[in-house]
């Protein structure tokens, strides 16, 4: 029986320049686990909204084509009716939590059904258990939960209704590695226990391979590839072109000219092919120039007494791209803010260009150290792209031709010239992030600190962004990126600074850091296969006379 039938679906949001979906055809069978992937802006979330009836019933725009879910036409049957059988879990765990406690949150979905108190209670406990949360979570409030826990509550709220179709829209995107792991286990448990058809929008190829029976690749509003995950990923170049990056083992195998074998076999081969891996294992290794920022024995405690930094010492140099990594709560963002002078260390010293941070005025310091926040919307203060980039410059008294020139330079570098008069609100996620970078870049800072720029983005965007940061480092700037993506750190960074519980536990070339199992474990890093292979090859070469 077909659970989902989509025919020729086109959708244009009101106020949008072009349609987001340009003729999607899709069928999903009962009991199937379908994965949908593709680059940011391809229309994946729009497709999800079309499957729930929110498009076209609640969002203004123009639709063509037909969507039937469980036999219901999304044009004729009200969203509330469709939602009785279709449950969705979205990317951002924060916005899905509308009530004040976990119990109330899950109960909300059940109260519309006219169930008795006992039945509601039973379902709440069952759903919580399914996602690996215990009864002690019932009274917890949103601010007491981690990202992973919140997302699991969202999944619990969805499965408590025992939907016939469960849609997961990038359920792990916004989470740190620990959170991702928790949610993946929850999905595993749900898949095993719930007799539902599942559609999962996801970027991570490992997750797709693990769960999906079939993979659909969406790009530029149309389905471009479809088939079993292995089958789709084996067409590596085509998949990559549509930002459907294959799992590491397949990608590496193709790079080495091998048929995609298992991970174990690749590792065995690594020992034999050490010399042939030079091309694969060529990573940037910049020694770095002049010290831009230095920290000596820095401590920081938040007002509640929580010690976020415990004796951190490091130096950031010109021409260097450093990746700062570690689990949530390890002190990464605190360290970054202390280096930027946004937080004052309780002990120790931070120097920028050789002078103590306290000697600078806010204006001077921000001209030397630029900080880009994780959510670019937090730092877009103006009503046009041009004004946004000009904001910091105007604060510094730059005007007239000089202003025009510097803003133009920043817009060109970040490919935003055509959007100069556009309101920042209407930029895509990626454009907003580039704008945030551009507005800091225009100030010509010596050190650029970028906080988790790739979280929630597809890999193609992540690579593009890291390319830009790499260019900036190569042009003589110092760049510090806070990230959870070990792959990107390995590919682009000169240094990997690993943190755990307020301390720097490793600070070396990414390959060297990732070769240390103890560090990888403590910093909760995911060691890429590439790192393992190259580390083996490196050890082999060193062992040879």
């Amino acid at each position, binding site marked *: 029986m077909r659970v989902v039938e989509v025919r020729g679906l086109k959708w244009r949001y009101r106020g949008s320049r072009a349609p987001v979906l340009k003729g999607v055809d899709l069928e999903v069978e009962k009991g199937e686990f379908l994965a949908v992937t593709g680059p940011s802006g391809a229309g994946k979330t729009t497709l999800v909204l079309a499957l729930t009836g929110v498009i076209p019933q*609640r969002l203004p725009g123009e639709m063509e084509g037909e969507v039937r879910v469980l036999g219901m036409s999304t044009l004729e049957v009200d*969203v509330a009716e469709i939602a009785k059988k279709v449950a969705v879990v979205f990317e951002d765990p924060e916005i899905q939590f*509308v009530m004040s406690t976990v119990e109330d949150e899950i109960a909300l979905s059940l109260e519309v059904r006219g169930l008795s108190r006992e039945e509601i209670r039973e379902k709440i406990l069952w759903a919580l258990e399914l996602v690996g949360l215990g009864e002690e979570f019932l009274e917890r409030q949103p601010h007491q939960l981690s990202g992973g826990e919140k997302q699991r509550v969202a999944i619990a709220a969805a499965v408590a209704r025992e939907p016939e179709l469960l849609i997961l829209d990038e359920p792990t995107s916004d989470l740190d590695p620990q959170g991702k792991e928790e949610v993946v286990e929850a999905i595993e448990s749900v898949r095993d226990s719930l007799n539902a058809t599942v559609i999962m929008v996801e970027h991570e190829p490992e997750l797709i391979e693990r769960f999906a029976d079939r993979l659909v690749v969406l790009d530029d509003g149309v389905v471009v590839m479809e088939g079993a995950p292995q089958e789709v990923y084996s067409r590596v170049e085509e998949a990559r072109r549509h930002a459907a990056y294959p799992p590491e083992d397949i990608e590496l195998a193709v790079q080495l000219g091998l048929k995609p074998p298992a991970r174990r076999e690749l590792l065995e081969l690594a020992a034999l092919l050490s010399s042939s891996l030079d091309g694969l294992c060529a990573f940037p290794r910049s020694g770095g120039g002049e010290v831009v920022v230095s920290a000596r024995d820095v401590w920081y405690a938040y007002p509640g007494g929580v010690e976020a930094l415990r004796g951190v010492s490091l130096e950031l140099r010109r021409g260097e791209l450093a990746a700062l990594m570690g689990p949530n709560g390890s002190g990464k963002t605190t360290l970054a803010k202390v280096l930027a002078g*946004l937080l004052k260390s309780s002990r120790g010293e931070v120097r920028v260009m050789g002078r103590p941070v306290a000697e600078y005025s806010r204006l001077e310091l921000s001209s030397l150290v630029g900080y880009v926040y994780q959510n670019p919307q937090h730092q877009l*203060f103006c009503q046009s792209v041009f004004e946004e980039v000009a904001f910091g410059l105007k*604060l510094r008294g730059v005007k007239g031709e000089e202003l025009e020139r510097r803003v133009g330079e920043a817009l060109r570098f970040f490919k935003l010239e055509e959007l100069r008069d556009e309101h920042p609100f209407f930029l895509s996620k990626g454009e907003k992030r580039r704008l945030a970078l551009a507005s800091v870049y225009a100030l010509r800072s010596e050190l650029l600190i970028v906080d988790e720029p790739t979280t929630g983005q597809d890999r193609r965007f992540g690579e593009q962004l890291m390319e830009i940061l790499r260019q900036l480092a190569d042009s003589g700037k110092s760049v510090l990126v806070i990230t959870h993506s070990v792959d990107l750190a390995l590919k682009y960074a000169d240094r990997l600074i690993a943190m755990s519980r307020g301390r720097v536990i490793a600070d070396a070339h990414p390959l060297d850091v990732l070769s240390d199992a103890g560090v990888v474990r403590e910093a909760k890093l995911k060691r890429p296969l590439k790192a393992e292979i190259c580390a083996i090859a490196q050890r082999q070469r060193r062992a040879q006379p």
Partner: protein
Amino acid sequence: MPTLLEEFVGARVGGSPYLRLHSVTRIIVPFLLSLNVLFAKDLLSVAALCSLSFAVLLLSGVPLRVVRGYLALIASVTIFIALAFMLFTKVPGRVLWELQLLRVQAERGVWEWSIVVTDASLLRTLYFSLRILSMIFIATLFIATVGDRDMLWGLRRLGLPAGITVGASLFFRGIGFFLSDFAVVKEAMEARGVDFERTGLAKRFMLYVNALIPLLSLLVTRSFEISTALETRGISPGTRLSGSYHSTPLSRGDYLVLAAICIVTLAFAGWFMCG
């Protein structure tokens, strides 16, 4: 479950029998006490009300340091009220002290602006101050003993639609969102070079405008995301959600307290009518 006061300022109310009362009781008691403010028309009745409110506040387990925080407010209110009676008007009575500030010979008389302290003005100041104090005690009782969950479940039991009940819950969530967003936005402005402390008042005012733009943009983004999530849960604004999941019956203690407060209110009303 945290109370409103705990959510606003982090002040935790210690365990007390009052907090174990039903949420309906904890909402009705301050409401009825506040009705008595209407009936307290002289110094004696307002003093009685003030004492009663303070006593109930103490019994409810609210830490006194919360009330201490109001001292500055109470002091400024008292001074302002005193000025009202001494500076802006003359309350007839025995003049205790007088100071002429300004005297203008107008076309049709003399206009004098003086500070005049009479015994009656002092008593009126005391009356108003005690009344404000009572109101503060009663309001503190409400927010220190009622949580957002109590209010939300109360709205549910009234059978109000999801648009109101879920909306009320989002109000409290919204406060949290805004406070954390504001902190980040302010910091982001500092990261761009804004120095709030060293900027003049007028410029700082305009900079706060710049801060409101991303905050409201985030509001719009969040509202679309939250509303989409709600729509997909099958809850429309008109849906009536059952309040029975958390409904518990009133206990004997609840009935006793409610009866007592009703009697007190009737007593004040009688005092007002007969006194």
